[in-house]
């Protein structure tokens, strides 16, 4: 490839990178995006959010067909599973999504460069194509958007066959009889749910004494109860210290964190889902003099500028929650900054969703965080069992919990366990962006019958004014 020069070159074509590139191009900057994989969309679209949600939907429908219909008076024999068709549908959704980004690049005239990017110095990126050919790309601005990768577990080597990461867990050729998930975070619980619904016996091993670390404690407790009732097993305060992979599966050695004898736990498949870490291998950060912190994250000034002028960083490689939508907003803001605008990303209001059944969603602070910060708050909590639409949908598990400042009533956080939690959380997110009080939400006319009425009722409960409980 001939040497090329641009206003902006973005390294990484995930949600942060591709959105940044599109926005930069829309702002009139000559833009290129370097992506090492054959398809755009990064982890999220190819081996993350999108395929996992496709499988979560399919496996949910499978479970509904098997167990959910009788109560409605619908009689159907136990369903059969065509896993290959289910995976093919997932692949099709992924393919549609990546093709969509290709289209957006063409439409917005973003130059796509396939290969692995390495920052030589400010203004210069070297791209190594799959065949090893190297080329030079120059740009006034370089945006690092290389994302994150699966954090490995010492002594448990991922082979993507028996010991898999989330990537392998999205493409198992058959439903395992037994599966151990190491890590009770979002990814572990979502993918564990998929395979449990399809018939696997799933055990989740977690180092901490609770699931969903970082989320509200009450939410975590409720979800542990719910998932346990669905058949998922939990071993908390336990660490996996080694793995032996053989013909009959994997044998893990598991030790109690608080001391005690090691034990062997066997499974056909082991999913390692203990977290993700910034992906900067071979990016040339050190040589280019770009500062990183003690967790390997690129240090920025809070406005995406790295320690080297003309080099920016967004998304999972920098501080903050590793979420696609956070990256996207940072991508837009970074492009606007480069174009001379003055955007702000509100990092205090970033919703997060867990696509288990029921779903979990949260925005703002947890009760534990408020306590630790010494902020006086009031809470309102309304159960979906008292909500008409949840009842009518035969899906009434969970609650809406609102946390508001005890003195000003300003919304500080919201936590939803329940059907469509991932959609309901946006009213809170928007409310928090606007600096709304719980009373503001409580006084808004919410349509009947909707699940969102539980949002209103929980908000009213903060001041003891709930109507339907």
């Amino acid at each position, binding site marked *: 490839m001939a040497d090329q020069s641009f206003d902006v070159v973005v390294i990484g074509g995930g949600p942060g990178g591709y959105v940044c590139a599109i926005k930069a191009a829309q702002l009139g900057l000559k833009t290129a995006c370097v992506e090492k994989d054959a398809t755009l969309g990064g982890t999220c679209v190819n081996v993350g959010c999108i395929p996992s949600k496709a499988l979560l939907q399919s496996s949910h429908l499978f479970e509904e067909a098997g167990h959910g219909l009788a109560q409605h008076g619908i009689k159907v024999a136990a*369903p059969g599973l065509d896993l290959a068709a289910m995976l093919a549908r997932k692949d099709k959704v992924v393919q549609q999504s990546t093709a969509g980004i290709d289209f957006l690049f063409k439409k917005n005239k973003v130059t796509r460069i396939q290969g692995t990017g390495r920052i030589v110095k400010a203004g210069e990126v070297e791209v190594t194509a799959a065949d090893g050919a190297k080329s030079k790309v120059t740009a006034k601005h370089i945006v690092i958007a290389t994302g994150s990768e699966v954090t490995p577990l010492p002594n448990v080597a991922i082979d993507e066959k028996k010991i898999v990461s989330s990537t392998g867990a999205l493409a198992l050729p058959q439903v395992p009889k037994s599966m151990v998930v190491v890590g009770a975070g979002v990814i572990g619980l979502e993918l564990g749910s998929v395979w449990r619904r399809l018939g696997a016996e799933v055990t989740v091993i977690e180092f901490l004494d609770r699931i969903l670390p970082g989320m509200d404690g009450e939410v975590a407790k409720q979800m542990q109860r719910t998932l346990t009732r669905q058949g998922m097993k939990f071993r908390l305060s336990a660490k996996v210290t080694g793995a032996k992979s053989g013909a009959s599966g994997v044998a893990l050695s598991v030790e109690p964190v608080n001391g005690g004898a090691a034990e062997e736990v066997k499974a056909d498949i082991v999913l390692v889902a203990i977290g993700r870490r910034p992906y900067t291998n071979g990016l040339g950060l050190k040589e280019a003099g770009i500062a990183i912190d003690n967790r390997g994250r690129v240090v920025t000034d809070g406005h995406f500028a790295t320690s080297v002028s003309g080099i920016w960083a967004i998304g999972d490689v920098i501080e903050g929650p590793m979420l696609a939508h956070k990256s996207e907003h940072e991508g837009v803001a970074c492009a606007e900054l480069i174009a001379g605008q003055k955007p702000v990303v509100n990092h205090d209001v970033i919703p997060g969703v867990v696509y288990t059944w029921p779903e979990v969603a949260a925005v703002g602070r947890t009760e534990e965080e408020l306590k630790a910060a010494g902020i006086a708050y009031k809470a309102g909590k309304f159960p979906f069992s008292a909500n008409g639409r949840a009842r009518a949908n035969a899906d009434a598990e969970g609650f809406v919990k609102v946390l508001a400042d005890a003195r000003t009533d300003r919304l500080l956080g919201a936590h939803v366990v329940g059907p469509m939690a991932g959609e309901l959380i946006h009213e809170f997110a928007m409310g928090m962006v606007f600096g709304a009080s719980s009373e503001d939400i409580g006084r808004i006319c919410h*349509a*009947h*019958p909707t699940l969102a009425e539980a*949002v209103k009722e929980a908000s009213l409960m903060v001041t003891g004014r709930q109507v339907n409980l």
Partner: protein
Amino acid sequence: MPEIRTKVLIIGGGPGGYVTAIRLGQLGIATMLVERAWLGGTCLNVGCIPSKALIHAAEAFEQAVHQAGTDRYGIRVERPSIDFGRTMEWKDGIVGRLKGGVAALLKKHGVKTLAGHATMLDGKTARVESDTGPQVIKAEHVVLATGSVPAPLTALPFGGRVISSSEALSLSDVPQRLVVVGAGYIGLELGTAFAKLGSKVTVVEAEDRILPAYDTELTRPVARRLGALGVEMLAATRARGLSPDGEALVVEFAGGTERRLPADKILVAIGRRPCTEGLGLDQLDLGMDGAFIRIDERCATSMRNVWAIGDLTGEPMLAHRAMAQGEMVAEIIAGQRRAFDKVAIPAICFTDPEVVTVGLSPEKARKAGHEIRVASFPFQANGRALTLGAEEGFVRVTARADNHLILGIDAVGQGIAELSAAFGLALEMGARLEDIAGTIHAHPTLGEAFHEASLRTLGEALHI
């Protein structure tokens, strides 16, 4: 005759009435609620709640039928069958539990309830025919909340195979041939549910299209889906009456030709009218607005301390409007200064796909004299919709051209009813397009389509 005295008398125990009563109870005001049929009113007993249960069951059944054919999800099932009696039992169970819940809430808040039919004798006194005989109730404040009833069609009176939505929700069998008169949201919600449950459904509508209250851009996906479900749509067609043998509905097309539509059930769903019969309105001489009771922004009628809320007071006849009015009236009676100034009262059609409208449609905004910007974002380009297999539909945002203040948000799509709350909040908070653009929406969610539609209205779309 025994006479009861109370501070507030509420007539009607539907969503408007019972919410007023609970709020009054919370405010420590002695309240009596009179209900002649069921607590929870139309909404809970023969409206919103049972219809949503039926719609949900029908949707689940259709999904299973679909899976028994060619299923894209890789789930193989035998053709399912439905035990409709069991479905109805399930629905009745939900209604029963919620009704019990309302009774318990009223009790918890110290509201006295009386079962019976109330007739106003004057602005402070009502006579109630209860099981234990007639009683007279005197109150300082009266709240009229008697709601509405299905409007009959003169040429096709209710009875026999001609039914209203109330009876349609408690049929013992799935009718083989169902004719629905009226393609408004009630007719289409129930028609769609029965089509999914196996009825051969024909919808007759006098106007030239379905959901005449909505613009065609919004209703097109619903029309397409009705077609796919095999529902026959006869627009610009009038119901003439039953055939002489009583087994068919005779309809007349625009050109004057007639057709006979044999039907096991004929559901008349042409609208609802206020329920004022026997209420003794002639004794009060209240100011009226057509058939509705005229109210001001405080829900005050023309008579001091006589209040009216809900369907009795006109459109939109929506449970959540009645509830919001009820909360307000309770607070006004308690001495608070309140007025009904909602910018947004969302309306939802639980059709397939669902339709949500909040605020002004582009057409209404233009008529109101606004210079507007409008754009929509299709679910086809939304990741969550793709994973759910729900690509049909879009979110549409209407904003003022000059300052980008959002005037209206509409959407059509599968499972999008729940987006209505964020739409309502945006309008109530006076959001501009930039405010929505700057709010981080979770990925992958359907809500991102609202974010993108706002961006597109600004001319800054990223994903299309």
